[in-house]
């Protein structure tokens, strides 16, 4: 065992000190840095194109609709503030005391429907979100975090003069809507998201308003504006018909709503938020581990081929048995793979806040999964088994090669043939508890890869045990098979060289000399 460790540690240090390994180690964090920093560097146009803040202009030929639009924007801020404040209250207030001492506030924030128009009316009546928070503060638990109200997402800006003066307003608006030209916003230059044209005879119902935008998929602003125009039109018509103002207001805030309910969000087919996060997280983690497995297995093979070609292998074999050498090489790769995964995962975790805020929720979800030491142990175990399975096969291929070219000739087709083994777990990620996942957990060779993905959920104990037994037996069989080839081929100057020659050595009945 000491010799295995000596060889493994020696190989590990040799690789870690090499520029090629450091390059591979740092490339992923570098890509993450570039991938994260590039959007930050060009934040303004990207915000304009994909961010959540929208700036729009209104051409109101009726001359009366702007106050209704501005009021709708204020109401949108209040509505979103209410949702966030309700969630904040749910987590941070002393609920019993709030219900006892301020039942109206409790009814609004704890027991009410944060999405209803009446709740929005109620919070507006209390003076808005900020005032309501002031009222709530005395009921907060000690050490509650600060309340951060959502920022305003829609801003109405003045129409740029060159559009306003143009005979063809649509054409004139094009460069603004495509973010090629910026307009003055409340806090600096911004891109124009949309223009709302309200024709003069809109009030009579004879013409439609027109919403002009470069992005027709994201409709939140359009919906807010539609509701504002719709309500104002109805209010004016009700007024013309002599309906009392209070009645009109009540009618306008009355809305039928549909609630969404998923009876079993953990089952396949449910695209719940948590479920999506689990799938994304599992696929990301799996791909990272998969890359580490193959990268290090390849590196160890290349190092072995080099040792074989420069005759260090013969010297090593005079010191240790072939099996010891093979085990040492395998553990070199495992140490390297763990280092790679450690550095990559730490980089991703450390940089997600700064570089990838949108992926933060995925990382948080993964972190929550990893709080259970059993899952970490499970992932580590199956990752190691997966690596050792691939690594031993690769090492046998390396022992059959006399040059780097030979090794590539053997390893490349082997990798392509075994792609299904590595791709199946990605399908498993979509339903880690489903029949496919359970079946693959018991398939030789597939088992450790499948369980790498399933470790991120909570697989049944019998599946874990079954996969462990299958993986260990498969590894034992593969190591026995490849150790024979490894031992026999390591000093053969004419060994292998072709993929099929390697297969004959591996599975053929003849004993390699």
């Amino acid at each position, binding site marked *: 065992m000491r*010799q295995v460790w*000596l*060889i493994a540690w*020696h190989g590990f240090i*040799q690789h870690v*000190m*090499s520029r090629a390994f450091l390059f591979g180690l740092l490339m992923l964090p570098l890509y993450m840095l570039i991938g994260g920093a590039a959007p930050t560097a060009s934040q303004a146009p990207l915000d304009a194109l994909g961010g959540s803040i929208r700036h729009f202009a209104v051409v109101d030929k009726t001359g009366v609709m702007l106050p209704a639009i501005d009021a709708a924007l204020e109401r949108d801020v209040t509505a979103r503030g209410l949702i966030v404040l309700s969630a904040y209250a749910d987590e941070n207030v002393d609920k019993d005391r709030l219900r006892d001492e301020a039942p109206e506030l409790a009814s609004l924030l704890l027991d009410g429907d944060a999405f209803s128009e009446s709740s929005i009316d109620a919070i507006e009546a209390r003076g808005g979100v900020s005032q309501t928070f002031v009222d709530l503060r005395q009921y907060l638990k000690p050490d509650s975090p600060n309340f951060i109200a959502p920022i305003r997402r829609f801003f109405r800006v003045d129409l740029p003069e060159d559009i306003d003066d143009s005979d063809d307003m649509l054409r004139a608006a094009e460069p603004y809507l495509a973010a090629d030209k910026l307009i003055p916003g409340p806090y600096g230059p911004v891109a124009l998201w949309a223009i709302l044209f309200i024709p003069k005879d809109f009030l009579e119902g004879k013409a439609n308003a027109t919403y002009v935008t470069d992005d027709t998929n994201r409709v939140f602003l359009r919906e807010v504006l539609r509701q504002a125009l719709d309500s104002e039109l109805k209010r004016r018509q009700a007024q013309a018909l002599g309906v009392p103002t209070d009645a009109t207001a009540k009618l306008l805030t009355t809305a039928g709503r549909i609630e969404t309910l998923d009876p079993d969000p953990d089952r396949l087919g449910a695209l719940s938020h948590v479920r999506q996060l689990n799938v994304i997280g599992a696929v990301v983690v799996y791909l990272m581990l998969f890359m580490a497995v193959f990268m290090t297995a390849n590196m160890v093979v290349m190092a072995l081929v080099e*040792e074989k070609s*420069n*005759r*260090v*292998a*013969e*010297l*090593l*074999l*005079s*010191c*240790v*048995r072939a099996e010891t050498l093979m085990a040492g090489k395998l553990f070199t790769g495992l140490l390297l793979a763990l280092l790679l995964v450690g550095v990559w995962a730490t980089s991703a975790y450390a940089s997600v806040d700064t570089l990838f805020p949108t992926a933060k929720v995925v990382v948080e979800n993964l972190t929550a999964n990893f709080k259970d030491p059993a899952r970490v142990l499970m992932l580590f175990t199956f990752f190691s088994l997966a690596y050792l399975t691939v690594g031993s096969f690769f090492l046998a291929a390396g022992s059959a090669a006399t040059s780097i070219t030979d090794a590539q000739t053997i390893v490349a087709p082997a990798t392509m043939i075994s792609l299904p083994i590595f791709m199946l777990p990605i399908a498993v990620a979509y339903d880690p508890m489903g029949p496919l996942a359970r079946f693959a957990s018991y398939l030789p060779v597939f088992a450790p890869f499948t369980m790498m993905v399933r470790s991120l959920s909570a697989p049944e104990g019998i599946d874990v045990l079954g996969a462990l037994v299958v993986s260990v037996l498969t590894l034992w069989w593969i190591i026995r098979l490849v150790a024979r080839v490894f031992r026999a081929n390591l*000093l053969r100057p004419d060994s292998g060289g072709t993929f099929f020659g390697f297969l004959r050595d591996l599975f053929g009945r003849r004993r390699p*000399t």
Partner: protein
Amino acid sequence: MGDAVLELTGVTKRYGDFLAVDRVTFDAPRGRILGLLGPNGAGKTSTLRMILGISAPSEGEIAIFGRAPGRAVQRRIGYLPEERGLYKRMTALDTIAYFAKLKGMWGGKARRRAGELLDELGLGDVKDRRIEALSKGMAQKVQLATAIAHEPELVILDEPFSGLDPINQNELEVAIRRLANAGTTVLFSTHTMSHAERLCDRFVILVKGRKAFDGTLEEARAEIPRTIKLESANDLSFLSAVKGVTDVVPPHDDIKHWEIVLAKGADPQAVLAACFEHGAKLTRFDSSPPTLHEVFVVLAGGDVGDAEP
């Protein structure tokens, strides 16, 4: 035989249909230097690899310290392979210490021993230099140090002199003698006869996988007819009548001397006396015993391959 460190009995090695070693039997006494001689392809390296346990014999038995090759005896053997290879980016000291540790030495002792060996071999100044920055001769000394750092009882050197300049060859000879004087058994293969002649107590000559000779230099010389070289302006054909002379070869082609071939055990002085009797004037009388190379040529049946004098 009882003091033999190494014993091979009927050892055969086949690679597919190719017979590399054919029923070879010999032993190596403790504390002696044994030369394994033969042209390239004679089966020397295959034999050494079987002794080391790197490959298994197809037939026959090998005993090292009374046990089969393998883990039990691996640490008692040092090996210098024919084709040298070291980790280019490692320092000389780290390289020697690493292989010593693989052979069972513990870290601190291995490094101390590596330092001592480098000093002994005149490489103390370059111990922290990477192998790739060393000259070929220096690297070869480092390689020798890796073979002996763990203080083995049996050292196997496969063509240790190849690629070395004369100065380094002499230094290596000194190192090998030092090992033997310290009680280490040395088995080395070579196709350069002069080194073997100077160093070895005994020889095993392999030709096409078969053992052609096993014994001391004197025994080897006795195996072949002795030849006396004479130079004279006279006709020396009369020597064919001298008792013990089996052949008289007159000068021919580029050879300007007469060669008088004696029967086994015949006295060269009888030839000299016959020359005096016949009044022949000799300008050269060379009755020196045959060199190992000459013995080798005869034993190898002329198939000396790349063997060097």
